[in-house]
């Protein structure tokens, strides 16, 4: 999710019955970013993917 859509993602999680659903935030916008910039952004957040995927499910 880009930073401009954090509140939208939070709301969608809420209305879909998954309040607090975790997601990774990266910079906005990406449509005008270069390939190098996109790669750098991906590298910055890649390490958090494992944390999100392996996090124990909250009840």
């Amino acid at each position: 999710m880009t930073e401009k859509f954090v509140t939208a993602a939070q709301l969608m999680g809420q209305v879909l019955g998954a309040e607090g659903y975790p997601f990774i935030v990266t910079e906005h916008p990406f449509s005008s970013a270069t390939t190098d910039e996109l790669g750098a952004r991906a590298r910055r957040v890649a390490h958090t993917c494992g944390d999100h995927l392996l996090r124990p499910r909250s009840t």
Partner: protein
Amino acid sequence: MTLPATLQSNRITFDDPLSVQEHFHSRGWTDGLPIVPPTPDAVTACLDWAGLPAEHLVGVEPVRGRGLTAEKIAVNAVMAGCLPMHFPVVVTAVAAMLAEPFLLHGSTASTGGSAILLIVNGPIRNEIGMDATFNALGPSDRASTCIGRAVRLVLGNLLEVRPGEIDRSTFGHPGKISWCMAEDEEHSPWISLAEERLGDPHVSAVTAMAAMAPRQLMNEWTTDPEEILDTFVAEIKANMRHYSIWAGNYAIVIPPQLRQHFAAAGWSKSDIQNYVFEQARIRRGEWADCGKGAIVHGKDDQEYAALPDPSHLLVIAAGGPAGGFGAVIPPWLGHKSRAATMAVGACVDC
């Protein structure tokens, strides 16, 4: 007054009319304009007119699986100023929007900022006082304005489609306040939009389209159908260059002054659709002419059509008696959302 047993909505009592307005505004239940208090009697009158029980499930929003009942829609219709006789059109409009190909969530949440355009056909237009002539794309009459507003209030109050919540529109456009129109079937040489899409010449129906703002054009210096349509095509191509290249439902609105030229030349709606389908095409390389060279990706000669096929062009007869104008109404985002037409009074779950 006793709350009818069938209504499930919360009941709130107020001492004066102004406090009603302020309460609804403060809860974010309005579009900023005053509302008509949705009293149990007014809501029940809408339901009775349409012959719907309060708990009737009009449809389910596909992404969230949220059901919209007749009662909740009636509450919003009353708030928007609808009379009971307007309510069947509101219900049909909501049902059409909930059809899966319409992609209601995507089209109402997108930064693109489309509005819901409603086109009403059939006898019900006249029964409820819709006017397809003067100011056809604006507030032409009470029914059009209130029905369009009711749909917007339904989106906000039942599906959280409010600015900054589900609605992420960068700009939006004025059609998001209310956008409902009738087709001028009485002064048209053509079959109606509803007959074309449903095959029934006598049906009352609503077509919903996720639509960007109308682009007005003018060509009153020819009687040649092809030249007239070339102006419409130029506007469609401009939209493809400047906004979105993807093919989808475009609507074009043709007023009486231009319709007479098509009639004199014997052109049907189908002839118009076929001509526009063939002519409304651009090359991807044209993007470089308007600052979008970065996404041409070496595919300069790749051709893109505005319409997936001729039937995707919604040809609408409407407008005041004088003026050689026209309007092109582009789709939100190609064919991701497809226009949906539904007959008034059709039951979708029985």
